[in-house]
């Protein structure tokens, strides 16, 4: 064979090998965590191993739409996981256990199902945290039972008026947090019967006492949490008319549970937080229970592994603000 032919063949072979080999080689050495809409598989892999104290480097990419990544109950800023781009995250765990990671940008009606776990092994010097029993369980509240208040205020109760009225009332037993947790606004309304105030005035006092259980900062945090996590189903104005409400209702109509007559625990329209009787009949322990445990098939996600206790309480405070006119400081 002529030398030129040999040279040409070598060049062609080298070019071909480089073109095919380089990308394949690098691809096999790039472990990525792929994010996909839940309908298309969710996180892959969805179980990650880690060790206490050892930094965990994760490279995340999305295969379809914009997703996000955060770890439940951990103090970290959520990062966006963009289609075709890689986001690098380094995490260090100081306690062993199972951590939940989840998607933080809405990616379809099943966005909340996009979760995975990080199993952190090893020992930690800190003592094992005590598992707390949720308050609704301690108080033995059936969070699935209907909790409509028999009456609702005719106008939106105002906390400022309530504050003025409450100044001259013996209401100390109602202003402690335990009361707020265990009782619904309606129960407080009933308990105020002895004060001789009109219905509207009593509701005003209720709204004032409810507001005193939270702060403007907490309400602002609750509003942000609501708009990022709840508004897509429950509506930006709390009316249960979010963009996915119709999907949920349709899924409910088509589900086996509904067909078997068990409509109340099948997929359904999200709760309307502007429904006065429903909200005013709910204690914050009940609301906390709903948020922690989820809807058991109704389409309401369980947030127990995602939100901290403080975040849930901020959220609940915000939910009540759909029913009361809180004073703006």
């Amino acid at each position, binding site marked *: 064979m002529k030398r030129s032919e040999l040279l040409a063949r070598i060049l062609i072979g080298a070019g071909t090998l480089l073109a095919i080999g380089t990308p394949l080689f690098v691809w096999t050495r790039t472990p990525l965590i792929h994010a996909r809409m839940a309908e298309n598989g969710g996180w892959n892999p969805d179980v990650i191993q880690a060790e206490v104290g050892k930094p965990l480097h994760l490279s995340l990419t999305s*295969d379809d739409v914009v997703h996000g990544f955060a770890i439940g109950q951990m103090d970290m800023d959520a990062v966006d996981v963009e289609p075709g781009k890689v986001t690098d995250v380094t995490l260090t765990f100081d306690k062993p256990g199972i951590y939940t990671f989840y998607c933080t940008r809405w990616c379809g009606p099943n966005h909340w199902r996009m979760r995975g776990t990080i199993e952190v092994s090893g020992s930690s010097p800190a003592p094992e945290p005590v598992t707390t029993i949720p308050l609704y369980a301690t108080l033995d509240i059936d969070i699935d039972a209907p909790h409509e208040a028999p009456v609702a205020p005719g106008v939106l109760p105002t906390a400022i008026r309530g504050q003025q009225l409450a100044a001259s009332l013996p209401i100390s037993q109602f202003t402690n947090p335990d009361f707020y947790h265990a009782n619904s606004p309606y129960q407080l309304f009933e308990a105020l019967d002895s004060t001789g105030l009109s219905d509207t005035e009593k509701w005003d006092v209720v709204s004032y006492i409810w507001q005193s259980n939270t702060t403007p900062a907490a309400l602002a945090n609750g509003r942000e949490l609501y708009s990022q996590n709840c508004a897509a189903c429950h509506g930006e104005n709390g009316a249960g008319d979010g963009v996915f409400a119709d999907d949920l209702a349709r899924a409910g109509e088509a589900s086996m549970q509904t067909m078997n007559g068990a409509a109340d625990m099948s997929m359904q329209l999200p709760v309307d937080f502007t429904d006065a009787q429903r909200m005013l009949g709910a204690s914050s322990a009940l609301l906390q229970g709903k948020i922690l445990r989820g809807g058991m098939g109704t389409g309401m996600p369980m947030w127990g592994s995602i939100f901290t206790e403080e975040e849930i309480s901020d959220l609940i405070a915000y939910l009540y603000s759909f029913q009361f006119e809180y004073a703006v400081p």
Partner: protein
Amino acid sequence: MAKVELTSNPFIKRTLKSRWPQLAVFIVMLAGYLFAIVAGLVGTPVGSRNFSIVFVWIAWWAILILVAVPFFGRGWCAVCPIPLPGEWLQRGAVLTPPDKKPKWLNRRWPKAFRNIWLQNISFLLLALFSSVLLTTPSITGIVLAAMFFAAIGLSAVFERRAFCRYLCPVGGFIGLYSQTAPIELRIKDKQVCAACEGKPCYNGSIDGYGCPWDVFPGGLTKNSYCGLCMECLRTCPHDNIAVNVRPFSADLAKPSARMDEAFKAFIMLGSAMIYAGVLLGPWSALKDAAYNVGTNAWFIYVALFLAIIFVVMPALFALCVARFEKFTLFKKRFATLSTALIPLGLMFWVAFSLSFVLTNASYILASLSDPLGLGWNLFGTANAIWQPMLTSILAPGQSLALVGGLIWSARTAQKAANEAQTLSIPVIVYCFIATVVMLWLLV
């Protein structure tokens, strides 16, 4: 404007005759092509961040339809890597052959398929699935690989570049539109060819191979089937082959009267209009129908697509050229006058492509740095943001292309009508209506 012979310049002639510059280009193209296949198959499934989608459907397509075809005719075919492995294996060499004996079966392409109907069909096969093809890297990777292996397989059975000449979906329209280009490869003197013994331009010699495109260079009058591979430049012992610059669409002055080419013109004209409506329009039902392959809506979309290009458009055109006469005469006139649709179709595709190329060209920068979407940043441009380019000249550019295309096709219609001894005005009106529709869809 007269012809200017490029090959009279010794530097140009040397470069075109030498196999090394061509080989260098081949190696780059082949590497890019194989890289695109791998990127499509293992890279990110997100089209805008995958080399295969960005470099095939944005970069390569833009260069093809805006530069290569209008200015260089079959210029892309001259550098395309698809036939190369098959051809090298056929020849048993990558440069000059040690002997002239062809390897493998070397059969003649069957007579019944010696036309561009198979190319019409292969183009349509891609066109009907285009929404999925243009947006899904793995599908693009598979299609590129399929064409690659089909070319190798055909080279093992048939002589010359059978895939390129008779099957390639892109080659069908490149060939048709190459007639408008200002570049051509022709012989210099007919008498020299008449006296030539052995015709090595077609049969090969120690200097090179017989025309891979199954064309007799001595008889070339149009660009349609010459792939500008320069093989005949190497084999002609009488230095009778030239590459010339000539006026645009000189080939259309002698219109061909082939039905396969006529229908190719309708396929291209129709699909440009359908794509303008479906892909670039604001109507979601059409996009859903085009994308959701296998659904009832998609079947309806396919049926309408085929009806428009095979029935509606040709039928309306037939009305424009109909006369009471023998069917064979009518067919000839129909095919001759349909050459007016060639420059029109080219400009329709230019106008359509300008839109999505200018809108999405910024993806090219990012894709250069991170071709597989694995998080690389080779040139620092991986995070270049998407930004439509030159949107202020988009509408003017499209209008210019479409108005220019209409004037060009009207002129072509006149010449074709002269050939066919008929009136060109109905055909011009047809082109006018199509242009108005395309303007409304795009601008």
